[in-house]
């Protein structure tokens, strides 16, 4: 998280922190593990009231950021989500809301934004696809034109909160190439959801099958066949949230472990006095600072819609997907046996970081993507 926040941002982050502190103690997270939704709708609506779902929507459309930089503000919320391993579809809901706000028609905005921002309805992005189309950016779900409507056929998984969601933003391959996106009700005939299993305590995912699901033209979001830029933007927003969340999870894990190292004695000395642990902890602290630096820089580039936004989110994912997990595993190691029990809190943050690491592109996906980005940039400069 940024070292310097404006007073408004500090207040906003503090409010979210206080709210999460009150509403989602770790004992509740443990209870929620068997909850089908993983979060309480009223909790989500209250979070929405704090602004969690309207930061990327302009004031004209009924939203509003705290600092004038909604993506950076959202990253503050995501950081706290990581620190609390908080429930709720922060990522996917914001992606859908931002997408509608960015490319929706006046009618779409009017019909969707109020409910999405208030939390009355939850939108989820149906983007990733199951094997063999699991590599980042692969879209095989087909949108075929038939009888004046679009017919959607294919699979999307994992889709966050797919069972809970009332609205899906579907990214599909257009017949003539390119991508087309649709915003559709989750109960559209031909669309069915099977819950998946997950290692997170509170996030839930579903496998959504589109079996010749027919949708009207009014469901198209943006230009048919030309949604590539929108999809990239959505991906960047999702990644900014992931990066901040993983950084928050690291931060909290380090905090718990710092306390442990100082208070815990072995052979009459605090663990914090053992040089082997001190040195490893110094490295962990260094990685945490790098994570903060990268996550903040990525948020800023995405906020600015800079030419390097795609590069930064991928570098961030490539870094955090490796180092956040390494640092959190080290935190576990420093705790010994107690660190791998269900009763201890550490795994809550580890789960969240591991979850984020594998979704919206794995580390390997993003390293390959980074190389492509570098190649295309070089071609520009030649």
């Amino acid at each position, binding site marked *: 998280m940024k070292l310097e926040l404006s007073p408004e941002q500090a207040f906003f982050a503090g409010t979210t922190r206080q709210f999460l502190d009150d509403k989602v103690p770790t004992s509740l997270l443990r209870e929620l593990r068997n909850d089908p939704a993983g979060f309480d709708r009223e909790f989500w609506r209250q979070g929405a009231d704090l602004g969690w779902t309207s930061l990327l929507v302009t004031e004209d459309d009924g939203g509003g950021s705290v600092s004038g930089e909604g993506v950076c503000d959202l990253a503050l919320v995501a950081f706290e989500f990581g620190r609390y391993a908080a429930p709720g579809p922060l990522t996917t809901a914001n992606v859908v809301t931002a997408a509608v706000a960015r490319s929706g028609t006046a009618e779409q905005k009017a019909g969707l934004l109020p409910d999405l921002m208030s939390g009355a309805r939850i939108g989820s992005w149906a983007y*990733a696809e*199951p*094997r*063999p189309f*699991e590599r980042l950016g692969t879209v095989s779900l087909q949108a075929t034109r038939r009888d004046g409507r679009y017919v959607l056929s294919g699979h999307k*998984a*994992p889709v966050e909160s797919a069972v809970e969601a009332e609205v899906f933003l579907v990214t599909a391959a257009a017949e003539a190439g390119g991508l087309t996106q649709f915003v559709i009700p989750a109960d559209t005939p031909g669309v069915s959801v*099977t819950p*998946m*299993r*997950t*290692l*997170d305590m509170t996030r839930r*995912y579903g*496998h959504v099958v589109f079996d010749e699901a027919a949708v009207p033209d009014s469901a198209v979001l943006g230009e048919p066949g030309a949604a590539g830029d929108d999809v990239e933007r959505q991906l960047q927003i999702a990644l900014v949230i992931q990066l901040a969340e993983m950084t928050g999870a690291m931060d909290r894990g380090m905090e718990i472990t710092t306390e442990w190292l*100082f*208070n*815990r*004695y*072995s*052979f*009459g*000395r*605090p663990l914090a006095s*053992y040089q*082997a*642990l001190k040195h490893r902890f110094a490295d962990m602290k260094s990685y945490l600072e790098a994570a903060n630096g990268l996550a903040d820089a990525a948020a800023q580039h995405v906020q600015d819609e800079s030419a390097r936004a795609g590069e930064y989110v991928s570098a961030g994912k490539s870094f955090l997907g490796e180092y956040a997990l390494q640092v959190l*595993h080290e935190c*576990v*190691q420093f705790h*010994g*046996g*107690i*660190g*791998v*029990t*269900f*009763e*201890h809190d550490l*795994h809550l943050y*580890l*789960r969240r970081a*591991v*979850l984020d*690491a*594998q*979704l919206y592109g*794995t*580390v*390997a996906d993003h390293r390959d993507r980074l190389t492509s980005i570098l190649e295309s940039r070089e071609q520009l400069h030649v």
Partner: protein
Amino acid sequence: MSDLAQAPDIEDLDSFRYRLRDWLKENMPPADPRRAPFRRMSDEEELALVAYHRELQRRLYDGGFAGIIFAKEYGGAGLTPAHQEVLNEEIVGYEYPARFQVPTFSPCASVIYEFGTDEQKRRHIPAILRGEEIWMQFLSEPGGGSDVAGAQTTAIRDGDEWVINGSKIWTTGAWWSDWGLCLARTNWDVPKHRGLSVFMLKIHQPGIDVHRIEMLNGSKEFCQEFMTDLRIPDSDRIGEVDGGWTVGTRWMYHEKSLGISHYFIRPVGSMRGANLGGPTPLGVARQAGRLDDPVARQLVGEAHTLQLAGQEATARIARGMASRKLSDQAAGISRILAGVLNTRLATINYELAGASAVAWDEQDQPLGDLGVEFLMRQARQIGGGTVEMSRNGVSERLLGMPRETRRDNDVAFREVPRSAPSR
């Protein structure tokens, strides 16, 4: 000891081998290839397995093949380590009572065998060999970490009895076990190694509350025991009063030497560190549909490399220790490698599984399991003594580097700082 194999009153190895081979064929069921070593079981399945293994142990006893190196007077076969090696070779491919070789036979039975009185040995060794007594180590304590000699469980003498209060943790399956070997503090006014004693205690009795610990992967194999005014007779004390660390030192030796011990059955090829017991990385890559992905192939090749490296290192160290070319402290090397390499293997499996490691369809449960095992990966560097303790041991005791400063050696245990001063 191996000279004994040539002694006239001891059966020669070949004869033993053929007799054993025939007996196994007749009496022991073939190994079930579907039985994954670390498969998650329901409580009912686990209890059934334990009962089955008690029965297998009884068959071995009845056949004269239980406790190969234990003396005949205590129900053993009275043979040599070389005979145990033969059994370890011949039993490959058969079911055997794997569930309680460790810690029942070693360290527990071996400690009783070394330090118990004749009466104590007659009471417990034959019962163990018949599968009637399953033993646990009451050793680690909550808050004790790697410092087992810092036990705070306290035994106070009351006439012919001892009154024990305290808590032990990380006992595997105490809920279905019978007896515990317990390290307790009998004197707080002397330095820590000089105020300990060792006791034998029945696990399921008033005064002991057994609590099952849930691990983050859902496993409940470990237990914690709470002892409250537990009374046991002085006749269940092993070794001298306050001399428990003499026992404890050998106890620790047996625990670290499981890879070369002859007190129990260790089928050839099953050595610690040899493999994860889970799916092969090649199998994971196939299930994840990534066998054509060059990046995944690198991971599969790396994983196989680490498996062979762990296996060959462990074998080398076991050979070296057995032949005395390497000191017993070299066991720490196997432990470090098992921890470090298996941690990396868990990570490779997680990477191969991709998104299915974190959110999966029902039919991809094996990939999802890999995600959960990744969450648990550090257990490989924690369980059975942390790698950090092994690194201390290897650098200090094997390589002779100066020892870490300890603040607990020369003061009464009562005075040793045990947590941060309250602020």
